[in-house]
């Protein structure tokens, strides 16, 4: 479980991709996401996936992206089966299943290379309410903590004779109750404590607080953003006017 979770959690890196302005990284991920939705054949999707894997390699997060793929493979298989049952078309079903993996990879590329602080700055540029930004960024920040909590709770309950891996599906779901209750209670307690700690440190005292870091796009960031938009436009154009191999 921890192994899989690593595919979604940010870890500091020094690659070129990590150093790109987070707003540009968001733009790249959004464009990849839209491109995946525009894809009409497995060949096109394979091309996009190869491109995303290349970005992951440049960002030195290839192994973690592979974990993301492994995590989504189960859902992807479910999508394939469901589509195949209703459409009886293996190629279309495979396209939908692979598209799901590509969508997850496109978003995880952003999240695993962008720190919560950078995420906060990105959200600020969209002029979202401060409370919304804070709530979202805090939730992201606490994902690894909750994973760690889950593992420790599972350890504690297994040490009291709880067999999490035994029995049928219903039994296994029921066995998760001793894990879920402490997890939820801890999270509620932690959020209450966090709220008190924030208020005691003057959260909300002024309407427009200052920021420690102000992001400014460099020339290279702008060049990457323009290149991403141009590549997207060319790819979208080629999908509809050059490549004929559509299955949809």
């Amino acid at each position, binding site marked *: 479980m*921890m*192994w899989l979770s*690593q595919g979604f959690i940010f870890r500091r890196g020094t690659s070129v991709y990590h150093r790109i302005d987070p707003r540009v990284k968001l733009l790249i991920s959004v464009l990849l996401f839209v491109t995946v939705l525009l894809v009409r054949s497995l060949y096109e999707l394979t091309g996009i996936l190869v491109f995303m894997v290349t970005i992951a390699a440049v960002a030195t997060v290839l192994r973690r992206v592979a974990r993301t793929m492994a995590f989504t493979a189960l859902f992807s298989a479910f999508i394939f089966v469901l589509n195949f049952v209703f459409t009886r078309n293996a190629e279309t079903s495979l396209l939908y299943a692979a598209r799901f993996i590509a969508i997850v990879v496109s978003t995880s590329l952003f999240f695993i290379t962008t720190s919560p602080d950078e995420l906060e700055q990105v959200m600020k540029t969209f002029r979202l309410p401060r409370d919304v930004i804070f709530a979202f960024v805090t939730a992201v920040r606490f994902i690894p903590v909750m994973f760690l*909590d889950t593992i*420790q*709770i599972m*350890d*504690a*309950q*297994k*040490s*009291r*004779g*709880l*067999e999490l*891996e035994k029995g049928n599906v219903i039994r296994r779901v029921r066995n998760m*109750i*001793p894990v879920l*209750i*402490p997890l939820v*209670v*801890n999270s509620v*307690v932690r959020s209450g404590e966090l709220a008190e700690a924030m208020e005691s440190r003057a959260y909300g005292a002024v309407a427009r607080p200052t920021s420690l870091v102000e992001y400014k796009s460099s020339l290279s960031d702008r060049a990457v953003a323009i290149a991403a938009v141009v590549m997207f436009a060319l790819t979208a154009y080629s999908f509809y006017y050059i490549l004929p191999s559509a299955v949809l």
Partner: protein
Amino acid sequence: MIELQDVTFVHQNGVRALDGVSLKIDSGETVGIVGENGAGKTTLVKHVTGLLKPTSGKVLVDGKSTGETSTAQLSRKVGVAFQNPDHQLFSESVEEEMAFALRNFGFPAELVEQRVTWGLGLFGLEEYRKSSPLVLSGGEKKRLTLACILAWDPEVVILDEPTVGQDSIQKEKLAGTIRMLASSGKTVVVVSHDIEFLWPVQPRVVVMKAGRIVGDGPASRIMQDRDILDSARVAQPQLVEFYQSLRARPGKPFVDPLDARRWLEGGGGK
């Protein structure tokens, strides 16, 4: 009873939490494991319960490798009270919480009732029997987790930082419980930063540093060995430090306690 044979454990991020640890704990022994944060104490304990499997080496409990047994099965023999009680409390009432493990192990209803009553009495929690465990104070929660473990009478009792959040009276009671367990033949392993708590218990002390065992022996010897304790960044018990300082002091005994205090504050004996 418990044997670690050249155990090494490397985390996924490459951190070597245990590095060639060999340790044998006989049945009925009381062992204190000490060391600074990140020394590998809890990782070692998790190997004994089978929650972690060694990267290399072998962990044997009662002659059986932990790799061949599930944690749930192992826990019948090895009871662990983890550091944070909030990681295990979930039931509607304190008695339900205590009965959870007993039911998992298939104890008959009568025995469950009997063991729950015994455990609540031992840790002074009878008045909370019908209360939710979530509303107890930090110290009470900690005591409840200990009661939960002792309720099924495991052969080995492992206490991970048992004194956190306990006042001095509860600490004394806890030390008494450990002595009682030891005298009844249980193997007791206490992982603790609290040297002052361990000293009166006089266990065999295992000192850990950076995933290795750097000292192992009776408390009376290890606690006096400043080289070992300093290298593992473990403080000496005040009483031992005081005794050593007094022993090193030349001249006459002190006239009053303030004299002794002034002498110690002036770096006496060091």
